[in-house]
């Protein structure tokens, strides 16, 4: 009996530090924050979208990877809207309108981000130029090498 009381006191002591943390989230959590949609196809769609949305409270995590309560609310929002049949890109746009471009990990195509989308092409072109220079010289070297051979 005495021992049981000691254990429960110890348990209480252990759990006490948890209390203030729990108090922060006193609102009932959003239903779809930690629950998947029953339809696997819809859930996959929601998951794909959530992985490309930024948790605004964390450093570099998507809302699919975060325990922040705001990320939970956003997951709920995404899942609810997907379940209602909304288009993922429309949901992204709705979130961008509310939170700004920052919320989307997929950069939106607009004048300010053109360089970002032009970069792969520019780099590829540059690489092709560099390699072509090599190739030309290589061809000449090839001819020279072949000539040297008996």
């Amino acid at each position, binding site marked *: 009996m005495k021992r049981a009381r000691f254990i429960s006191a110890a*348990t209480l002591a*252990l*759990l006490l*530090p*948890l209390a203030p*943390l*729990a108090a922060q*989230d006193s609102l*009932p*959590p959003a239903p779809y924050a*930690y*629950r*998947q949609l029953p339809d696997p196809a819809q859930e996959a769609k929601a*998951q794909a979208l959530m*992985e*490309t949305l*930024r948790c605004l409270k964390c*450093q*570099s*995590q*998507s809302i*699919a*990877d*975060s*325990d922040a309560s705001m990320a939970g609310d956003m997951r709920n929002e995404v899942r609810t809207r997907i379940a209602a049949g909304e288009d993922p890109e429309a949901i992204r746009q709705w979130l961008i309108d509310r939170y*700004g*471009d*920052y*919320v*989307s*990990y*997929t*950069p*939106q195509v607009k004048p*300010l*981000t053109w*360089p*970002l989308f032009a*970069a*792969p092409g520019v*780099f*590829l072109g540059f*690489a092709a130029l*560099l*390699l072509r220079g*090599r*190739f030309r*010289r*290589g*061809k000449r*070297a*090839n001819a*020279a*090498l*072949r000539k040297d051979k008996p």
Partner: protein
Amino acid sequence: MIAELGLAILWMAAALAVLQLVAGALALRPQGAAMLGVVRPVAVMQGILVALAFAALITLFVTTDLSVKLVAENSHSAKPLIFKIAGTWGNHEGSMLLWVTIMSLAGGFVALVERRLPEKTLMATLAAQAFVSLGFYAFLLLASNPFARLPQPAPEGAGLNPLLQDIGLAFHPPTLYVGYVGLSIAFSFAVGALITRDVGPAFARAMRPWVLGAWIFLTIGITAGSYWAYYTLGWGGWWFWDPVENASLMPWLAATALLHSVSVLAARNALRAWTVMLGVIAFSMSMVGTFLVRSGILTSVHAFAVDPARGSFILALLAIYIGGALLLFALRASTVTEGARFAFVSREAALVFNNVMLCGILGIVLLGTLYPLLTEAFGVKVSVGPPYFNPVAAIFAFPMFVVMAVGPLLRWKDDRGGRIAPILAVPALVAIAAGGAAFVAGVRVLPALGLALGAGLAIASLLPLRGRNLRRTPLPIWGMVIAHLGIAVAALGMASESAFSTETLAALNPGETRQVGPYALTLDRIDPVAGPNWTALQATVSARYDGGDATVLLPQARVFANPPGTRTESALKTRWNGQLYVVLGEEGQDGRWQMRFWWKPFVPLIWLGGLLVGLGGLLALIGRVARDVKRLVAVDKIAFRRERQGR
């Protein structure tokens, strides 16, 4: 007392670095022979002194001397010893001191053992190294003194971020720093060779072990960091394209390119200017990485502005080093010829192609990491994340995998594609079969291509061993084969994780069961447990694979008191064909417990691949160094014999 001693020693070491720079520079003059004897011992002494200063700082952390500002801000008396020690470099000042310590020790080591380079090139190298470390001394002594005292000793320390109180993360920063510093030594070699116009195979052989060593540490550091993020963040992600991750990836990409071009230079005396340029780029990337992580610019431009002195200091150092090196390169580039020529179909050409592809990925990562900072200057905050990086990096990575499969089979200088085509038929067929199967199974394009190329490359990477006597195959060849295999294995793991992972989120009462992939998971009970400086709730979960025997998993939700914070401790069960990942979340309103389960087929291959790449590098390094030592011993013997005969 120890703090003041540490600071004094640090000043002395900085003074020696000045001496090393001046004496090294003077030794380059025609009449500078008198200086030749000074530089080496000074470099060694400088290394020893900084190590002592760092030891002083570790002592302060171990004894938790709370009159020292850095200790009071970052440590706590009730922390396990290992994390007190690790706390030494878990903060800005300490990590900078660690950087300069590793750097000066490496410089001292070069001064002690390097015998292949012409004396003048070595002097120029050590002077360049002193020049680089002086910047860091200035930074430490003027802008971030680790030994500063508080006017009043603090009653108790503020503690270390709970996320950092993990054995994996304790050794993560030093590992990366060794890599960064190795690249700084390679940079010094490149500058030294540029100054004396001595870019050739001897320079490449002297530089290669440092590049290899740096690259091994970066590989291991990135692999370990990724695994740490995977199991502590509690959501099963393993790479986030986070700027901090990119900061370690960029030097690795540059070092990989440098490693391959320095090998061409050593073996074939080709790609001289290209190698020097990559040496400069690789070090630039490690400086950019340090700048990104240390300036606080990442969280936002505004966080940077809170303490602009530090960020500006690193930015100024960056500009001086990189600008100076590029200027030197521009001045000397005309005198550095490209070296031996090679044909379009040759091993050199394949290496050049992949070097260019690596630089392409590097460019994309650099741009994507810095772009949000650029747009923020225009008042718009954007995010650049996985949806951008994954496909765009793949544009460069996939052709690179193909050439990786072909390149090692080609001969140096000149070859015909027809010669190796029959050998490559098997891996090509395997790749097509794997890609076809993935496509039929409905896997998305990127993972399907990853599976195809990974499978093909895994087989092709072993082909250089065919027809060889395996016992007499040189270690560097083994190293190459294992490292390339590691890349293929990692690619397979990444593609499989992205294509086949399954997730189950569930709110469970004790006794309830849920399915994820092949596993049936039962929540048995929830208990409170306590550790040295944390308390936790621990779930007992029984996992049955395909209805087999139960394995017990114990995921925890930990709460730390000093400083307050929480951390999920995920529980993992690794099988040969994948990993089960279990996380305990919060208790819901109805008393049920939030649980998150993942089944990730073949995900451990990602880190196994990373380790294989590191192991390959290690074998190559051992092979190279063993050969160098043998040669040194032989040279010494001949010199000794000559001396005796002369007598």
